[in-house]
């Protein structure tokens, strides 16, 4: 099997590391060689963050390079645009339809681009989800990232039961039920 390349991008503090842990869990459970590369430290303070996940028979390089991603999961619109060129030509972009203004926009030094999802849809296969609204429907805005995982799961090669098993093993015991519900909500969107 050819090595699969997944990227998760977002804004520091959005909880992309939990998503990468779940992806690490499911690919390892399936017996693949896996490498995952994360950003800790200063960028986690509201900066642009990116996680690379690669799995296959044997994986050497821990990062995904431009033009190589099979799936790009973006937690925020602007970050989807920033990293879209990492996608392969037939790659899938899953984007959470949320806008978080970077400080450059807040101070007026830059403008937040308009029509990001429409423009990206012309070039890539884009699946857009308003995960924050869906999460609020479940009564807990924090599980929006698990909803995104649910959406992404449909575009990856693992069984639904396996995802649920990994979620059970990864999230804090107290939040297993709400996270399972969030995954289900994303999966059936």
């Amino acid at each position: 099997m050819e090595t699969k390349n997944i990227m998760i991008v977002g804004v520091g503090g959005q909880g992309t590391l939990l998503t990468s842990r779940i992806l690490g869990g499911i690919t390892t459970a399936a017996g693949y060689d896996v490498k995952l590369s994360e950003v800790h430290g200063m960028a986690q303070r509201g900066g642009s963050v990116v996680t690379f996940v690669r799995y296959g028979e044997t994986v050497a390089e821990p990062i995904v390079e431009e033009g190589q991603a099979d799936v790009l999961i973006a937690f925020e619109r602007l970050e989807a645009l920033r990293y879209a060129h990492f996608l392969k030509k037939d790659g899938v972009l899953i984007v959470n339809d949320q806008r978080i203004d970077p400080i450059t926009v807040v101070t007026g030094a830059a403008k937040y681009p308009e029509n990001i999802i429409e423009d990206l849809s012309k070039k890539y296969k884009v699946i857009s989800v308003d995960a924050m609204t869906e999460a609020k429907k479940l009564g807990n805005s924090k599980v929006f990232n698990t909803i995104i995982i649910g959406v992404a799961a449909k575009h990856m090669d693992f069984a639904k039961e396996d995802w649920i098993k990994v979620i059970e093993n990864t999230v804090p015991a107290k939040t297993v039920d709400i996270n399972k519900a969030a995954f289900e909500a994303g999966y059936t969107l």
Partner: protein
Amino acid sequence: MKEKKIMLGNEAIARGAYEAGVKVSAAYPGTPSTEISENIIHYPEIYAEWSPNEKVAMEVAIGASMSGVRAMASMKHVGVNVASDPLFTVSYIGVNGGLVLVAADDPGLYSSQNEQDSRLVARTALLPVLEPSDSSEAKEFMKYAYTISEKYDTPVMLRTTTRLAHSQGVVELEDRVEVEDKPYERNPRKYVMMPGNAKLRHVFVEQRMNALSEDGCDMWVNRVEMNDTKIGVITSGIPYQYVKEALPNASVLKLGMVHPLPRKMIEEFAAKVDTLYIVEELEPLIEEQVKSWGIKAIGKEIFTVQGEYSANMLRKAILHEEIELETPAEVPARPPILCPGCPHRSVFSVLNKLKIHAAGDIGCYTLGAVAPLNVVDTTVCMGSSISTLHGMEKAKGKEYIKNWVATIGDSTFLHTGVNSLMNMVYNQGTGTVMILDNSTTGMTGHQDHAATGKTLMGETVPAINIFHLCKAMGIEHVYEVDAFNTAELEALIKREVARDEVSVIITKAPCALLKTNISKKKCYMIPENCKKCGMCLVPGCPAITKDDNGNIRIDDTMCNGCGLCMQRCKFGAIGCKEV
């Protein structure tokens, strides 16, 4: 079958320490090394502590080694500088129980103030360096480091980089080997480094390094992967992975020990290949030595000394492959910023209003240097804020610093700021020092320190009282103030910068992200009162923004209810309530 687990490089290093029978670990948090200690506490067999700084951590590990147990210290690259005093001399002393220093470099400067190469420090300190390439090797090399340490009577540096430390890979777990404590015997010739003894130990160190270089040719951590001989590559660490990805057919000499180099092995390998490349991130440590032996090789002529490498970079530089890529979209930058509800924002917004410059320090509050706060003028290293401000005063006189303060966090103050403050008192400075006390080590993800009352292993202990510590230095004017009380803070700063004496203002409010401090409050707009003046936006809180129609909005999922925007609004257009 052995259990397999996916682990961060740092998690695997902790596991390696556990399996190697390590009993003592000391560290100061620093990206990308912090998670080593945070994972070591999962193994109750190991005593682990946060020391106030890396020099202390190193010395704690040295003491443990002298007493006969396996010990380690871990720190980021710039921490190695702080620890270099004991490090350079313990190189002469050697070890009793095995001693390993984990030095975590940061090529690409993800979270650091420089991009230095710790391998060069080890070379100068005459220490062997092991460099793993993935999580699995991180664990195995950690164990092997103790074998080398005890066999050759040497501390060993295990060098990692951000990409290794923060990448996860599959690791096979093994059991811990309980190592018997080595007996301690009084031996001043080894343990007391005064000139007569150190002179003799220096001779020993030279012999040790020569032996390591020779034996390195047979160490399993150094290996040749013979393939097509047109291209040969000498590499190590994470760059090895890029070589394997980009040049799967090339012959590779993978060095696990990058200092001292196994000269014979390298000479033999070089003779077998047509063109030899040396691929190492940052400084040409391997390359310069190999070339000095008269071996022809290509290295930094085509590879940069800056940042991280990648497979595509090697494809272009070595294979001259044209890689067609989409042009990245032009998008606004998203640099890191202070979080919503961060007490530092409140302090900096007051300093900004008063047009006061800050000699800054290392921590989240370094972000006070960027727009819209623009308060921090200088940042060098841990603890430097107070001493650089003092230097300015001694150069230009006390009037010159009447619109300056030093800003330093609680953890950084205890790290090395306290020495600088002592100096300011002793040498009759008049600076105003602001200790931004958020009850934690923030930037690295909330580690305890001597003033939090908790240890790394979770014990509750008496907390060092920063107020009394400053008082004990003989400073008369020491004040504690709520970081969010901007009116009081403003009055206090104005009064203290004017004073011809040292004063310390401790601004108190816990980090907004501390789990024990999760706010139940949220700010909200009262639109009918809003004049759209934008005063609330000035401190640059990411939770409050202006939409395209000029309306102010507060994002209730981001807001922490600190009320700074509410304090700034003169028209009562912002409220704050428990939700």
